[in-house]
């Protein structure tokens, strides 16, 4: 029986196991919305297309499944670009469907026509325009396969309006992921790494987003614990290794911990797992891990030897590489005695003691770090997902909240997208209705996708927004303070809405405090209040994120705030 393209689309999405779509209707996709009206797949009406893509992204990060967004042609499509680029840089599997003008009008500058294939070519893993309804099922199947296989990423499918109205038979297509054998590290290299690890005095594991995306946290823990190797994870890798473990060093890089950066600079073997050596992690490349042999496991060959020269490259997904390495450790009965690591772990403990993550506490004014610490104490235990915006709020959330589980810290790492955290929290909450989802925001970034408050209220999505409100674009102000002689050019954001009134206007609950003594009370109130909540914390205005490595500087040279520069 022949059915319409729009019906085939819904069938194919069901076949892929899609249970929620984030979208926004328009003329070019009105036929698809007519199908959705039948209620066959849950649809969340966002208030801006960028929000739809971030929500799909947050859903994907929290659930491990492919997130889906649906928007109309023209501005609907072009509004998705930031969300797509964000997912691209963080390798998040999403599929974005864009409407398009009818095939007969493509190229005529028709109303709401935009060349979204051309626009998104450099920021998608792949994109398709479906020109014939017969290609629809296969294209969708292939798109989902591409999005989640190898190094995951965003895929866009452009759907001309007439293709959605054309009739065809529906025959389920399947690009089965299992058909592709997972790459395994050559055992020769596993032996080589084992030898290196046996000989190393100061070994270190640097793990990245690849561990989270590859579902390899358990394998990472097993390896680190068995070999007593300390672990540092990039922003994208937080949660892969428990933030409360004694072997945990915190995040490295520009705002990394003193001890993580010192460990990188002093290690003699660095086993890097699913990390692409972003400049925010490496600082000055020439001095990065200058004493170390570097092993690099990555599913994407183009990440290897891109920024940092690698001694032992292993092209593999992290899970299978770690599994076979752990197997080898077992077979060889590899053990590390306390003595073997005493010197190295002692050195690290010394760094931890000398320069812990800290800030100057205050009874007068709320320190933003204090809000995060208190939030952590109230919500620890693995039933909480934290999303962040971008800037100081993000760095404090990475530093002062301890993540013990993967997929519980969702942050825009590569693109650094202000406005990511809140819609991502909506997506994460839909993936995990029973968990507490908190967006840690700044007063600047929350305003970038504030319109999604209506979405949260409409669907009773109980995300909690914690605004660290300093009336500044804090991170830019920090740079202006440190590198531009305090010329605060256009970073003062004092003219902001009253967030409590704004919450009320949208139909949610708002709390505010400027007193340190009330932080815990407000957090408790906010968390226990049903439905979405805004908590507006009026924090110290000119607090800086420390440690800080100067942009382009070596990571062992950190500014520590009130302390002296340390080498």
């Amino acid at each position, binding site marked *: 029986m022949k059915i319409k393209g729009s019906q085939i689309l819904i069938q194919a999405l069901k076949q892929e196991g899609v249970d929620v779509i984030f979208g926004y209707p328009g003329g070019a996709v009105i036929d698809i919305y007519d199908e959705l009206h039948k209620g066959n797949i849950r649809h969340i009406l966002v208030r801006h297309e960028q929000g739809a893509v971030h929500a799909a992204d947050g859903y994907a990060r929290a659930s491990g499944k492919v997130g889906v967004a649906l928007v109309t042609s023209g501005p609907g499509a072009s509004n998705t670009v930031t969300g797509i680029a964000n997912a691209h840089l963080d390798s998040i599997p999403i599929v974005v469907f864009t409407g398009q003008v009818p095939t007969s009008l493509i190229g005529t500058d028709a109303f709401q026509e935009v060349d979204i294939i*051309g626009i998104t*070519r450099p920021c998608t893993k*792949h994109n398709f325009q479906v020109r014939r309804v017969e290609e629809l099922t296969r294209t969708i199947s292939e798109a989902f396969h591409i999005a989640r296989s190898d190094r995951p990423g965003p895929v866009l499918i452009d759907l001309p309006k007439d293709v959605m109205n054309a009739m065809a038979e529906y025959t389920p297509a399947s690009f089965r992921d299992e058909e592709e054998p997972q790459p395994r590290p050559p055992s020769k290299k596993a032996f080589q790494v084992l030898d290196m690890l046996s000989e190393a005095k100061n070994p270190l594991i640097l793990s990245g987003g690849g561990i989270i995306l590859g579902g390899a946290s358990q394998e990472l823990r097993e390896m680190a614990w068995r070999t007593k190797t300390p672990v540092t994870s990039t922003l994208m890798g937080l949660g892969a290794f428990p933030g409360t473990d004694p072997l945990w060093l915190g995040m490295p890089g520009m705002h990394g911990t003193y001890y993580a950066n010192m460990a990188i600079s002093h290690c003699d073997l660095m086993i890097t797992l699913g990390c692409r050596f972003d400049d925010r992690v490496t600082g000055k490349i020439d001095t990065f891990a200058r004493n170390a042999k570097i092993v690099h496991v990555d599913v*994407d*060959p183009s990440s290897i*030897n891109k920024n940092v020269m690698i001694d032992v490259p292993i092209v593999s997904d992290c899970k299978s590489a770690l599994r076979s390495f752990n197997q080898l450790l077992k077979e060889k009965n590899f053990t590390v005695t306390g003595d073997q690591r005493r010197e190295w772990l002692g050195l690290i403990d010394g760094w931890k003691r000398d320069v812990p993550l800290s800030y100057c506490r205050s009874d007068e004014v709320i320190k933003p770090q204090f809000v995060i610490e208190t939030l952590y104490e109230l919500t620890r235990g693995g039933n909480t997902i934290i999303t962040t915006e971008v800037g100081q709020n993000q760095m404090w959330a990475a530093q002062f909240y301890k993540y013990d589980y993967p997929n519980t810290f969702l942050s825009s790492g590569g693109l650094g997208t202000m406005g990511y955290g809140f819609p991502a929290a909506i997506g994460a909450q839909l993936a995990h209705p029973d968990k507490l989802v908190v967006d840690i925001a700044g007063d600047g970034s929350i305003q970038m996708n504030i319109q999604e408050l209506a979405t949260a209220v409409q669907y009773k999505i109980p995300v909690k927004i914690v605004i660290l409100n300093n009336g500044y674009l804090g991170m830019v102000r920090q740079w202006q303070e440190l590198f531009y002689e305090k010329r605060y050019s256009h970073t003062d954001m004092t003219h902001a809405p009253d967030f409590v009134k704004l919450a009320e206007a949208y139909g949610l609950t708002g709390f505010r405090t400027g007193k340190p003594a009330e932080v815990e009370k407000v957090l408790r109130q906010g968390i226990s209040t049903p439905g979405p909540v805004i908590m507006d914390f009026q924090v110290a205005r000119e607090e800086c994120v420390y440690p800080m490595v100067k942009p382009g500087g070596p990571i062992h040279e950190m500014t520590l705030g009130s302390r002296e520069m340390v080498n």
Partner: protein
Amino acid sequence: MEREKKERILSLLVSNKPDVLARVAGTLGGRGYNIETLCVDATLDPKVSKIILTTIADQPTLTKIEKQLMKLIDVQKVTDLTKMATVMREMMLVRMRLTDKNKADVALIIDTFRGRVVTLNGDHCVIEISGMREEIEKALQSLTPLGIDDMARTGIIALERTK
């Protein structure tokens, strides 16, 4: 590793689809690599096209380019022909105005570079010359002072000598 920046020849097998060339060009351009020459046509299998391009790069950069190209879904194979035993050719068409003064010289150059006259229209002729890139350069240098109207070059194509 070879650090010398020089002309490198890549041969790509890609899906024969309308926007594949844009993807390939965008991948190089977007990362700051310049395409010096470019040739594209279908292979014996009409679903597959071959792109032969040259770029000026050192070996580490070329490796990065190859890896980025391999990430494209529509790129099936990337071969670095630079170091392989290949036959390499480029073709050039040159339109010239013939005069009594330059006729003999033009004929001599055509003969030297084993070219041929493709068309002769009144006093205008179009000359075809093919050969190695250096030969084409030399032919062009020799013809330039004799008065070239216009010219077109194909860029390099290359093929491995054996399987």
